[in-house]
């Protein structure tokens, strides 16, 4: 315990009021949620004197939500908790010295000779006015060097925002106490690396947890637990963006129904880090959690056409990779939300980046279909050939889709015509469609190697 005492002495030098809680037997555990929120539990030995006493915590997160802080230890009762954010600056120091005596040291700029005087601070409005004996003076009005020495730092002024708890202790003695609080500024997401092999249609996937800390402090040797989920936060919590931009594609094709061996808490999945780690301020940390090889993946193409979408020049189809997260012929795990980056080997065997896609929390057993970008060689031109009015709100639209493929192998493009609102029917089509939903018709069009294909469809719409 000798070391701990010395540290307390060292800290007492600069904050005299209260007992800084700075025990050496400190364990920190940090539980980090996805949505810029973390629960910090800080356990350390605190010397309880018996009776009323203030305990200060200077190394808490700078973004702490003080209303969520709570201190627990045996045989103490909490009187009050304060969060002081009056910061120690030269201006505050002078402001709080109004009406008090300070020491000024005049330094002769030529000789360096010092003259000491006691001065009373009269005012600090736009300039410092001092009373020295019978004289009233403006500090450094003549520009000559004057040192100002204060006797002490006023209470409540601190270098960092500080949480202090006033307690009434029962019996005196050192005992463990746990401070827990919520703080924004800590967050995590998953980052996946997928290497696709074109020859056998398989992917190797590595998953990394990426943790960022911008909370303003370092958590030393922290037991870290990551929770895949975003607990609801109400007003006063971290800001949430309620507007979600238009989602162009659904990446989750089939929601899974399998359970893995991962630990759960309620409906959240837990990812504990194997050993305690130091999460430094402004650090980005990555820890591996998934490494799967040889998962079958399918490479396909997709083209979405909005209602009456027509283009003068052909547009690229999207490149799609789909795979399963099932235990059977899949990744065999649920995937926390994050970004999946696809790589593929070039002719020299070097992995090259071919695009990335965001995924949401995905249950085990799901089918994911991810777009990595546009295909250079597979293009579609959608054209509205003719529009004829059948009645007041009844239109017939003749659509033509021209597909081209500059690859030396045949490809199949999943062609989706969207926006079939209301009672929309396909009265004629050159190839049988499936109606994915009332709004969307789908064709699987095969385009020969280095060739073209064409599809026509007549829609009747009543709106």
């Amino acid at each position, binding site marked *: 315990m000798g070391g701990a005492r010395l540290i307390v002495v060292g800290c007492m030098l600069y904050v005299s009021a209260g007992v800084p809680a700075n025990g050496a037997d400190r364990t920190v555990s940090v539980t980090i949620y996805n949505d810029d929120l973390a629960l910090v539990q800080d356990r350390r030995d605190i010397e309880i004197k018996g009776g009323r006493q203030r305990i200060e915590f200077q190394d808490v997160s700078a973004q702490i939500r003080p209303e969520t802080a709570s201190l627990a230890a045996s045989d103490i009762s909490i009187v009050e908790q304060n969060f002081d954010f009056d910061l120690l600056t030269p201006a505050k120091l002078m402001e709080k010295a109004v009406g008090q005596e300070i020491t000024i040291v005049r330094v002769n700029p030529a000789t360096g000779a010092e003259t000491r005087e006691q001065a009373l601070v009269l005012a600090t409005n736009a300039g410092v006015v001092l009373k020295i004996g019978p004289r009233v003076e403006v500090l450094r009005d003549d520009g000559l060097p004057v040192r100002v020495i204060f006797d002490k730092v006023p209470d409540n002024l601190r*270098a960092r925002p500080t949480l202090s708890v006033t307690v009434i202790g029962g019996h005196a003695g050192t005992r463990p106490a746990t401070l827990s609080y919520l703080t924004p500024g800590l967050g995590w997401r998953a980052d996946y690396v997928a290497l696709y092999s074109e020859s056998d249609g398989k992917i190797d996937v590595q998953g*990394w947890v990426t943790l960022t800390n911008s909370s303003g402090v370092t958590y030393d040797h922290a037991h870290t637990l990551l929770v895949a989920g975003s607990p609801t936060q109400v007003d006063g919590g971290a800001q949430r963006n309620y507007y979600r931009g238009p989602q162009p594609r659904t990446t989750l094709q089939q929601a899974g129904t399998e359970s893995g061996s991962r630990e759960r808490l309620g409906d959240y999945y837990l990812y504990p880090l194997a050993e305690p780690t130091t999460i430094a301020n402004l650090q980005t940390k990555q820890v591996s959690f998934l490494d799967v090889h040889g998962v079958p993946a399918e490479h396909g193409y997709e083209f979405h056409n909005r209602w009456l979408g027509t283009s003068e020049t052909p547009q690229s189809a999207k490149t799609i990779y789909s795979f399963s997260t099932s235990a059977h012929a899949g990744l065999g795990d649920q995937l926390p939300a994050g970004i999946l980056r696809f790589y593929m080997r*070039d002719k020299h065997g070097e992995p090259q*980046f*071919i695009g990335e896609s965001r995924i949401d929390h995905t249950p085990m057993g799901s089918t994911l279909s991810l777009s990595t*970008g546009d295909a250079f060689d597979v293009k579609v031109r959608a054209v509205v050939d003719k529009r004829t009015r059948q009645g007041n709100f009844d239109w017939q639209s003749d659509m033509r889709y021209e597909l081209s493929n500059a690859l030396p192998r045949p490809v199949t493009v999943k062609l989706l015509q969207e926006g079939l609102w209301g009672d929309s029917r396909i009265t004629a089509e050159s190839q049988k469609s499936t109606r994915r939903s009332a709004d969307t018709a789908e064709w699987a069009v095969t385009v020969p190697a280095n060739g073209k294909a064409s599809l026509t469809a007549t829609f009747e719409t009543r709106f």
Partner: protein
Amino acid sequence: MRWATLAWMLATAPAIADDILASAPSELSVTVYRAPFRASGSIDLDSLGGFALISEVRTVHLPAGLSRLRFEGVADGIEQASDIVTGLPPGVIEKNREGKLLSPSALMAAAVGKPVTLLRTNKITGKQQRSDGTLLSDAEGGVVFQTSEGIEALRCSGLAETFNFAGVGGLAAKPTLSVLVRSAEASTRTVTLSYLARNFDWAADYIATLSGDGKSMDLGAWVTLANGNGVGFPSARTQVVAGRVNRENGEVEPLDAGGPILAECWPRGSTSDTAAPAYLQFAGRAESDDRMFKRSVAAAPAAQAITVTATRNVQQEQLGDLKLYRIPSRTTVASRQSKQVRLMDRAHIPIARVYGADLAADQSTPPAPAHLLLRTVNSAANHLGLPLPSGRIAVFASRGEERLLLHESGIQDRAVDEEVEFDLGDSPDVQVTVVNEKTTGPARAQVHAIRVDITNARPADINFELRLQMRAGGRVVGADHPVTIKNGRPIFRLAVPGNGTVTVRYQTVPAG
């Protein structure tokens, strides 16, 4: 003070892991991707919106046990979440990137609550006075410290004051990647580090030269690639990738490169309005101005060198659904440099010159110049038949020995056997006038009689395409020239004689 020093030493217990520095890269590969949002056009050296995949091979000597392997000299635009390290033993515990960089303010922040030595220098005699103390606060730009004499504020006295920091470490000058790894035995390993980095870009720059008769052209192109990072990549295998790849707007990892120390003091109002003497000026203010100046110099495009390497063409290969172009020999992708490598050279490509206009089918429009296009098909028969990545095309024509620029425009990705059109801008010699001669019928079923005059002030005959934009379900009837449908729109294909006029008449009738 001995107590405080001892406490400080105890508080910074020795690091549990030894720091191991990876060797400088022995093998480098840079693959540059285009800005995902740019469908056509060239790069902007001032804001490079693309990115690059960088692979580095480094050698490390790992001792047995726990070590922290550090990679220095990675690109400043590194996206840490994307990095991949291969070749390490299985015991990789975590990868880290420190965002808190060494700066005067970071040094000050790290020293809060710790012992420092204050140095005061007499400006006349140069004599130094040292006193030991503790740094109490650096809040909001002001610095408060304590010595045995009492509490004082830094640089408020008008004396030359500064601190000596001792034992404040652990801050890196640049974003540094480190890997915490536990190795069962000492070994020397070859490690590959791959990561994505921002602030790169590339585009194709085409130069078309029209032949004297205007019926064919020669087409050459450069790959122009640029690195806006402060780190160069010497003797690297270099590739560029064409095609649009998806990029998610991932969160940017936090980074604090430090602000200036302002040494804010108490209010400094005096009884005089005259300017304060020089030694009253904020030391920090001058520093911050200097800092801004340095930053702007660093970003100035004037510093960017443009290198044209020998004309050896890049080699193209298929990469999934993308096109990869390999620069044939190793090259140095220097920091803040743009580089050009030959993409292709093709001659005698037959082209059609087509004038055209896109018009609303039933409205009068005053005379407007027609649009000129060069049209060809990207096929082997036309001496092309290779993927054309997006970029910028400059069209030149010869005038005797000289070459004159006609027009510059953007070009999108074009696959083999696709139709390719190069925009040549407006032609004032060919004007199109639309007159709505007569409107008949009730409000919702109006029939318009339209006359279009196409005038040609050029001495040669021209091909003209008149494309009409119809209201939904509308039709063209009673036209006095043949009308066809292209892409769902009525189109007149006309030959306009040199120094002549062609007049087209038609009627539009609404749907139903």
